[in-house]
């Protein structure tokens, strides 16, 4: 009989994976990798350093059209590349330019906008951030109120964005703003997509410190900020179309299988080295069963992810079922941080290392902070409840 199913990569795909793996082992700077696997935060210049290594190789924006530096890889190869980077411990790429603003400009931008912004994103010259959430607009994003009023050849922007990741490091922000008038039929109408230079007068960025003590998100205030009209993307009032396009892009990469595989191996190695009752913690049945169940869930999700990718061959757009990858992927990421913290035992109570010169002390002290920090994953990028709403409506056809 002809084989009905083949769960393995083809010979070509395997060779590609080996090429990526070999290249990573030769070009990923060990000191960056060490920081990633030790859960230490990377500074902006370190992120840019890795960005430019990939850009020089031509691998920084695989999904972009080839004329703008894309690699021409299909969805399976792009997945292999991302998973290998995650597994190898490469620094995460900041998505706001490469994976969000870039694809939006490719799809909706004018030729001038593409020429102006895409090469700078590609080479790491501009850092971007995302101006979506507002104090009263979280999951109900379309209720946003930051306004942009057209005055001749420019807009005047007033309002506030919040939870803006990396705004303190960024050069530019893409924003959803309200350009429409009161009394429009639906709140999704009258929203526009604007690109704003963060150095423009009238913008103030203030840090929001999270419960892990870290600064990654900010409030961004706009007071009579003048934005040239040629920084509007797509038509005025059609920003919601752009936002929905972005949402589909955002969900495809959220499973992060390669990173979770590396972390799971790290968890098992850590628990094998720690002692409970004089024996390796990993041999403790109660602890080991939790690790096993997590490993099994990850095995299942890895194959589910491949099955969904296989469905994208031939250029089919991702369906709403990819919301499941976000839900399960983030649940697994959170469980990993929780089991790591649990493995460390009493040492996990530290939030700063007892001995800052000791790598193990620094590592133990990072675990509870990371546990706290990772609660964000099921909240950001469309909370997991919003993802369930999407599946309920678009996959299961449930009425609202």
């Amino acid at each position, binding site marked *: 009989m002809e084989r009905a199913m083949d*769960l393995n990569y083809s010979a070509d795909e395997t060779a590609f994976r080996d090429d990526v793996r070999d290249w990573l082992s030769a070009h990923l700077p060990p000191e960056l990798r060490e920081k990633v696997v030790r859960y230490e935060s990377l500074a902006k210049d370190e992120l840019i350093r890795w960005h430019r290594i990939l850009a020089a190789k031509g691998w920084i924006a695989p999904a972009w059209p080839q004329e703008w530096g894309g690699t021409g890889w299909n969805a399976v190869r792009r997945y292999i590349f991302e998973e290998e980077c995650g597994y190898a411990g490469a620094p995460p790429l900041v998505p706001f330019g490469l994976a969000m603003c870039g694809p939006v400009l490719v799809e909706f931008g004018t030729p001038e906008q593409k020429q102006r912004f895409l090469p700078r994103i590609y080479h790491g010259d501009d850092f971007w951030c995302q101006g979506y959430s507002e104090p009263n607009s979280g999951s109900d994003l379309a209720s946003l109120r930051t306004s942009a009023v057209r005055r001749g050849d420019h807009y005047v922007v007033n309002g506030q964005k919040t939870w803006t990741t990396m705004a303190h490091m960024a050069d530019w922000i893409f924003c959803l703003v309200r350009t429409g008038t009161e009394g429009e039929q639906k709140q999704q109408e009258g929203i526009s997509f604007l690109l704003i230079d963060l150095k423009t007068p009238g913008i103030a960025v203030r840090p929001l410190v999270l419960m892990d003590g870290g600064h990654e998100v900010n409030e961004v205030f706009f007071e009579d900020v003048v934005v040239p009209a040629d920084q509007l993307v797509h038509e005025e009032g059609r920003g919601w179309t752009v936002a929905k396009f972005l949402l589909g892009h955002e969900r495809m990469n959220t499973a992060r299988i390669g990173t979770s595989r590396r972390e799971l191996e790290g968890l098992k190695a850590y628990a094998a080295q720690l002692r409970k009752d004089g024996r390796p913690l990993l041999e403790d049945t109660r602890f080991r069963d939790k690790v096993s*169940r997590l490993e099994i869930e990850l095995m299942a999700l890895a194959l*589910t992810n491949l099955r969904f990718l*296989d469905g994208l061959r031939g250029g089919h757009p991702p369906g709403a079922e990819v919301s499941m990858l976000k839900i399960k992927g983030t649940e697994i990421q959170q469980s990993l941080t929780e089991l790591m913290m649990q493995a460390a035992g009493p040492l996990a109570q530290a939030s700063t290392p007892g001995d800052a010169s000791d790598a193990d002390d620094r590592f133990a002290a990072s675990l509870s902070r990371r546990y706290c920090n990772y609660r964000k994953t099921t909240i950001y990028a469309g909370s997991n409840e919003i993802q369930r709403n999407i599946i309920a409506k678009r996959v299961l056809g449930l009425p609202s």
Partner: protein
Amino acid sequence: MKFDRTEEQQQLAASIDRFIQRDYDFAVRTKIVASADGWGREGWKTMAALGLLGLPLPAEFGGFGGGAVDSMGVMEAIGAALIVEPYVPTVGLGAQFVARAGTAAQKERILPAVVEGDLTLAFAQSEMDARYDLARVAARAAKQADGAYVLDGEKRMVVHGEGADLVVVSARTAGEVADAKGISVFVVDPRADGVSLRGYRTIDGLRAADIAFDGARVGADALIGNEGDGLSLIEAVVDFATALICAEALGVIGYANDATLEYLKTRKQFGAPIGTFQALQHRVVDLFIEHEQVRSMASLACGAVDTEVDAAARKRVVSAAKVRIADACRRVSQECVQLHGAMGMSDDMKVSHAFRRLTVIAQQFGDADYHLERFAR
């Protein structure tokens, strides 16, 4: 990588679907379950005619030479229709022993008859206190001077034990209980002298039996494989059957989820379909996710039993699948009954039968705890 079904697979799936629509709706199943035998020879012959019984059996004896992956579609359909005929006992267990380790004469005598639908089998393994441990065999087979064996011992929960024409039995020819060495496999006529059966119904509507061997004498030609070397064979065959019921669970879960979704769209309370309530919507989304994860794990298990040559690696994948699927069986069955409200409790509702089958699959060939242990070993 390839996940699409082949043309052959699609045709097979279509013919199974036709069989189920025409000959095996829920009313027919209910009658079959209530009959004295508890299974239907008519449906069995139709399954033979469709080529289902020979699917994972060697081509030289009339089969199609396929494996567990090729059987996934059939098992999914068996699950969705809650088919009670002895597919796993006969094709997934009994005939697998013969196909993998039988003599030429045993294969010639048994396999073509299985493919034709003229012979069914069962596997008598479990004993009191053995739980799911395959090495814990106390039944004994004493070799006689003339090469024959005399069997003594009692086997419990032999699914299809009463209905089977032949029973494959594990018994110890050497060693002590739980020793890996010394277990042998025999194929036995359950109507022979010294064999007695006590049949009963299982919670999922099947029939099973306890079988006692009291000085039952079988010829040397009843031995399958090498004497004393049976454990690795038993493990391989039980892993194969485990992969099959993982695929069956996929079908049962698919049915239970579809039925529950349909119920949420049609059942009205407080003036609206209950499927408009977000508290319920998110729960069926989680059931949808379970179904996708079960499909992945069933695929991994079937792939492993077909192609993994390293027994330890095969066991690890099969156990991973069984843990995940046992967890899903429990969650989906409980949620689907809950979401159906009182209707879900009714014996008249197919979903309550799906609940019972899923409950059994969760434990069959090892529950989540057993397989978690084996996974980490």
